[in-house]
């Protein structure tokens, strides 16, 4: 009888040990899986935003050098920006034109353009600003400041 009880105890202990080991291995596997998932994810997400930031800077430089910003044409600026950034990128642009008064040494807002998508409120954006001059044949007629905000529509 004692022998039988000893065997039963041994079986119970073995079973408990197995369950215990199973649970421990399960926890370790979950930790490893979580680590590998998050470590590879963070690296792949670091570059799209940098790429978007570079493209955002490029748009402002080319808009300025092509004379679109000084031309003050909303349609030309919007068309160029849409074509350059493509449909996968949302954007919003604020352009301000200032008059400079030398006597007071002040800049006064003359006009402003608000272009692009005003309804979106994305979490992650690229932002670029640029200051430019509007000239006629001989003089500077306005001083301008432009801010371009872009974001990926696929996120």
């Amino acid at each position, binding site marked *: 009888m004692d022998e039988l009880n000893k065997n039963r105890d041994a079986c119970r202990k*073995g*079973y408990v*040990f*197995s369950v215990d*080991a*199973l649970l421990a*291995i399960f926890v*370790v*596997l979950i930790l*490893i*899986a979580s*680590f*590998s998932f998050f*470590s*590879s994810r963070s*690296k*792949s997400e670091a*570059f799209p935003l*940098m*790429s978007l930031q*570079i*493209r955002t800077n*490029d*748009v402002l*430089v*080319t808009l300025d*050098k*092509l004379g679109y910003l000084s031309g003050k044409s909303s349609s030309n600026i919007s068309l*160029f920006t849409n*074509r*350059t950034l493509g449909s996968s990128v949302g954007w919003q642009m604020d352009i301000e034109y200032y008059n400079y008064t030398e006597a007071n040494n002040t800049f006064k807002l003359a006009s402003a353009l608000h272009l692009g998508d005003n309804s979106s409120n994305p979490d992650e954006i690229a932002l670029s600003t640029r200051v430019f001059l509007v000239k006629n044949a001989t003089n500077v007629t306005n001083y301008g400041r432009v801010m371009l905000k872009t974001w990926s529509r696929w996120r």
Partner: protein
Amino acid sequence: MLVATIVFVVAFAGFIMLSDRAYRDTLSASKFDGIAIAGTSITESFVGSGGVPSDWETNSSNAQAIGLADSQNYLSHAKIKAFTLMTYNLSKTKIGLPPGIDYRFIVVNMSNATLYQSGVVLNKSQTITPFRRSIIVNGSPAELRLILYG
């Protein structure tokens, strides 16, 4: 005992598989990072500098660094032409492309018509990483595309 052994073997196999996958992911991410850094750096040199020496296009074999710009994002026709006429291996060395990575260089206008191109088109199934920069060439807007194969 039998149950414990089976559980151990299954768990160990799972561990090996996960470790292998994590290693491959890390290796792949590391290679991607290298390509991304190279592409960003090369395109920045293209659109942000005129190269070293500044008139390298007159004798491209003596170029120390390749730059294609007259001013920021305003590219020189002569420099682009000189770059596209360089032999492939020489151009790879001059732009500082790491070994094992190939490139395709294209400039298109706003209608997507090709203005300049050089480099290779690969048929092999390799990772393709494109880089695009908005530029001005010959007074008109265009897009520079650098595609790296690794």
